[in-house]
């Protein structure tokens, strides 16, 4: 403290002074926290923008895949359903199946293998059924979620079941 702000010794603080000082310090503390929050909030929202946009994308219930009806039998089309990868499989028997491509074990993207007629996750060797999405072997705890598929002459519509 500099000399000019030192109180003369004969001024004795009343108890009320101490109360109002405590109130002042509390108010200053609240104001300081509010100030820091006002600085931190825009920065947080700015950095969180992509994940917020992804959250909005999960609200999607339907995806139209243009010209996907031309997909040859025995092959797969990878596409994005909202924020995450999904696949549209045109089976050799003519059936159209669509399901999420995110492995239920640790989130790797799975792969359709037409020659083995299975869905395989290369990360830890999980295997799923390519018609129902059921977890067949390996570590996956749950089946892959399937979507509803509607094929028409301009494309394929995939929607939440």
């Amino acid at each position, binding site marked *: *403290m*500099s000399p000019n702000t030192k109180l003369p010794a004969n001024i004795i603080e009343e108890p009320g002074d101490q109360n109002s000082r405590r109130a002042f310090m509390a108010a200053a503390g609240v104001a300081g926290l509010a100030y820091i929050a006002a600085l931190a909030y*825009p*920065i947080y*929202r*700015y*950095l*969180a*923008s992509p994940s*917020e946009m992804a959250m909005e994308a999960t609200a999607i219930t339907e995806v139209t895949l243009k010209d996907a009806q031309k997909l040859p039998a025995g092959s797969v089309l990878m596409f994005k359903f909202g924020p995450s990868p999904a696949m549209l499989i045109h089976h050799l028997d003519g059936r159209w199946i669509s399901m999420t491509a995110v492995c239920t074990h640790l989130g790797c993207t799975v792969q359709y293998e037409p020659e083995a007629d299975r869905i395989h996750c290369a990360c830890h060797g999980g295997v799923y059924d390519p018609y129902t999405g059921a977890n067949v072997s390996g570590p996956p705890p749950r089946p892959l979620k399937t979507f509803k598929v509607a094929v028409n002459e301009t494309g394929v519509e995939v929607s939440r079941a």
Partner: protein
Amino acid sequence: MTTKTVAIYNWIDERLGLSELAAFARRKTVPVHSQSFWYYWGGISLFLFIVQCFTGVLLLVYYRPGAEAYESVRQITFVMHFGWLIRSAHAWAASLMIFSILVHMFSVYFMKAYRKPREFGWLSGMLLLGIAAVFGFSGYLLPMDELSYFATKVGLQIPAAIPFVGAGLANMLRGGPDVSEFTVQRFFALHVVVLPALFLPLLGFHLWLVQRHGNAIPPSEEAKPARQRKSMPFFPDFVRKDLAIWLISLNILALLASVFPWSLGKPFDPLAPAPMGIHPEWYFMSPFEMLKLLGFIFSGKYAGFGEIAGILLFTLGIVLWLLIPFYDKSKESGQRARAAHYFGLLAIFALLATTIIGYWTI
């Protein structure tokens, strides 16, 4: 303090010498006199530089240099939450930082704080200002909108006018004969890697010198006997005032950035004609206008001579300004000190006059 905290403090102190630092902070004082206000401007510049680092890193999170530069700035400004505010704060803090460095420089100049033993403080400070100007120039291009495209195009005509090496130098800076995505890529490297790598150690040197020599006092204070001079402790008195001024600066910055958000123009088009009223940032207005005025005086076939004369005149002025500690070095306020004082007034007049004419004739 409990014995445990004392023990921890002692453990660290033994290894890092904290008590020496604390003793230094206790001993350090800052002079108090009628011109003390000017002591805060170096600190304000430092604070705004810190703001630049923070907002710059935040912009770096989404900015993509090269061909996608404009699109990424459009995203930052219009898609990401509060991206407009962070970009605006970065741009405004850049302007305010240049302004406060200029105030700091002129206050040092008129208080004659460049004299022995502070010559290196003066020289390093001038170099910091120079780097800050290049920071401003390179950062201005990064959004790659129409205005930044033409400002860079015109600005690079200045090094291009240097005899013999100019054309090659300008091509090297641009990464080709014209401003393109190659230019924005290398300006980006300059802006976020090269310039900070030069600026930070130099800033450390500058601040270390301030600690070593303390604050200079103006000649009017030097004339007083030592016991009549007043001072205040650096810690906590000066630090407290310094922080209060930083808070005020932050509030002014937040107000400017949110009330006058930085705009984003149309994407650059190398075939489009220059838009009407194109002009550089305010801190480049003076050299821009001086070159323009000399271009009027030496028109036609002497135009090239006018450009070179302008660059020479400007370079000469900067060299004289840089060398002032070696010209005006006497402690007494004699003939030379007065000449230096008038030279400073002339510099301010020339800068202000050309800047005002520049804005007047946009």
